[in-house]
């Protein structure tokens, strides 16, 4: 950690900025692209954006902190978002959130220790007819029930397990180091 990592983030940010088309040179669009790259807005990246645009760093932070889309901590590998729109609310969306909280052992806005899951509430994803709704990554789960949470978690764990087994099979021999773990530490 420290300046090395900061330098790397700044360098990657510069690459993102260079890849933008001229009509995409809008602060919000820029921040969206940067967040797409890192999964969140690291401090060094925002400083780099400010430098490249010739504006003060506080201006970048003031814009980034205004909009709900931007986050300042890395999301989990499986970001869970529970819809809290009107239709989801009256059909028990807060119960669904509570169950996710109990099952993951974290509160909304937090990330699990192993960085696998993050839990957030989202205003409305526009699937009101399927309420209550939860998102895991990009996948939308309609008609959520408190009892379905466990099933979704189980499916993810099984997928993880299968992936790990696959990886172990592939990397069997050269070394026991699992690449994913190494990356995770670097971020932390």
């Amino acid at each position: 950690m420290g300046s090395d990592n900061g330098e790397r983030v700044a360098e990657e940010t510069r690459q993102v900025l260079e890849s933008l088309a001229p009509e995409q040179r809008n602060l919000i669009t820029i921040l969206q692209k940067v967040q797409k790259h890192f999964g969140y807005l690291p401090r060094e990246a925002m400083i780099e954006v400010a430098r490249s645009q010739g504006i003060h760093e506080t201006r970048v932070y003031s814009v980034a902190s205004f909009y709900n889309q931007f986050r300042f901590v890395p999301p989990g590998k499986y970001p869970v978002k529970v819809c809290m729109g009107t239709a989801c609310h009256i059909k028990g969306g807060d119960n669904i959130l509570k169950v996710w909280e109990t099952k993951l052992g974290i509160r909304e806005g937090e990330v699990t220790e192993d960085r696998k899951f993050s839990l957030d509430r989202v205003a409305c994803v526009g699937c009101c007819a399927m309420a209550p709704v939860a998102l895991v990554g990009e996948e939308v789960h309609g008609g959520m029930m408190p009892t379905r949470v466990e099933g979704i978690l189980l499916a993810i764990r099984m997928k993880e397990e299968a992936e790990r087994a696959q990886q172990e099979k592939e990397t069997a021999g050269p070394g026991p180091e699992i690449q994913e773990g190494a990356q995770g530490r670097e971020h932390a």
Partner: protein
Amino acid sequence: MNRDEAIVAAFERLLEKAKRHLAEQGRDGSRPVVTVGTATCGRAAGALDTLAALREEIEACGVDAAVMEVGCNGHCYAEPLVTISKLGWPPILYGPVKPGLASVLVKRFLVEDDPCLEYVLGGLEPHDLIPALTDFPRSAYEMRVLLARCGRIDPTDIHSALAAGAYAGLVRALRTEPADIVEEIRRAQLKGLGGAGYDTWKKWKVCRESADPERFVICNADEGDPGAFMDRSLLESDPHAVLEGMAICARAVGAPKGYLYIRAEYPLAVERARLAVAQARELGLLGPDILGSGFAFEPRVFQAAGAFVCGEETALIASIEGRRGMPRIRPPFPAEKGLNGKPTVINNVKTLASVPYIFREGWRSFAAIGHRATKGTTVFALAGKVMNTGLVEVPMGTSLRRLIFEVGGGVPKGKAFKAVQIGGPSGGCLPEEKLDVPIGFKALKEAGAMMGSGGMVILDEDNCMVETARFFLDFTQKESCGKCTFCRIGTRQMLEILEDIVQGRGTEEQIALLESLAEDIRLGSLCNLGRTAPNPILTTLRYFRGEYEAHIRERRCPAKVCRALTAYYILPEKCERTCDACVGSCPTEAIWVNAKRFKVIDQSFCIQCGACLEACPVQYSAVVKISPLADLPDRGARPEGYEKKKEK
């Protein structure tokens, strides 16, 4: 050949090409076509799995059939929806179609010619054997202007839209003088469908007559109201209708550039709108020289970053300019000084999508729809406790009762209707006795609600009105941009009072305080977010005051919703010793079995999710909700060492 003839000829060529294209793909009726609705709502119900299953089964059976993705046709309650068009049969709509049923349909209908009547939702054309959707009672009240093509065309293929009539209105507008376009809109009496109901032509006229030649057209698709999804559905199902409307508007006001401002939470809408712009540019329906007319229009899709207040036009502009989305004082209105200080027309998705209809069918035809001063149709997103959740489009002036009970099918599970919430956080809750109000900007405002962007959430006897008001205040308080003191601090204070009430700490004086705060916030806020934020409280106080009083005086939640005032309890006299249904259903293992084998809820573990109530077999119905807490016989704490004993 003069200019007008050249435009028409160029468009004819495109239509020919579209027909050829569809024929090449076998989508012209020469072979069976299977369509799956894959808008976000369909995907939430598993439409992508259904699509994969259909493709696999068609491949496996060796059937010659085209599979096509379409948008949402509004029947969201029956998602995933599949339509099969086969020679000799009308197009038949099936739903809900899970992957298992998908392969059954392929085998039995496509291979064996049995239309599987037991799974049919309805036919899309009249037929002797298949009941047509148009024969459903709801069709008698529905009228599809905006949603006409939704769910029938492939939103990712412009040829499909062209063959169904897209851009025909633009062709007429290109041959009309800009001033006459504004006149046509004035005669049609089109009003802004984003909620305010402002005359569309006035905005256009001001912008058109401005001295500054650099102008913009912005389509506002920042559909932030929780509970509304019409704009998303329209953009995902028929993006060309919106682009066509934008292009007509751009010609009327003389704007060479435009923005389609779409909410961050709608990734699929953004993707499909971008694709639609690219395809329309390629065919010369947008771009530097539209259909050889010399008129140029370049729309760009702008993905917003998630802020409710950006639905307000001046905040939206600030956000495109790369600043915090905070509203400013109007006037000057954006039509005079908007994006980058230039004249800008901002219209809602539905307003712009109505424009092509006016130009295709003429203003008379549009002005003939509707009720008194409010013309045209309106799209509502029905959600909550209603049978037919989804999109409905009805002429203005239809009564709420007809919309909810005849089109929407009423409240499910035999529960009693309590209220309808219209207009999202800016709107209000109307009770049963206000249901005969005709839908229109003025009538709804008088009743205390507002048209809003069209979200309509139905509440039944199991919903607490105080808690609903708290929910909306929580939303507006979080989304307040913080510029105006009354909105920033006032909504916070109102929220705190409502939290006190739902927690059972409320006092009688707080009701009066809520009313005076509401008035202050309304007067002291700059934009409509603040001005309308008290509406949910004011309407619930006006129509459901008794519920507030029960919370305060008796510490009782009449709907048995508020967590602090309610508990779940298992009646020992009804609990069946041999049944364990509730124990397994509880996600927090709050239910334990006592020595007599009766099930007991340990209140300290219970999160009140209601899973046990659902799980308890109906012949026992032993799980009940109790409010106030004073009526709860005991807290059901499990004896020490219970867990250990269970493990043995």
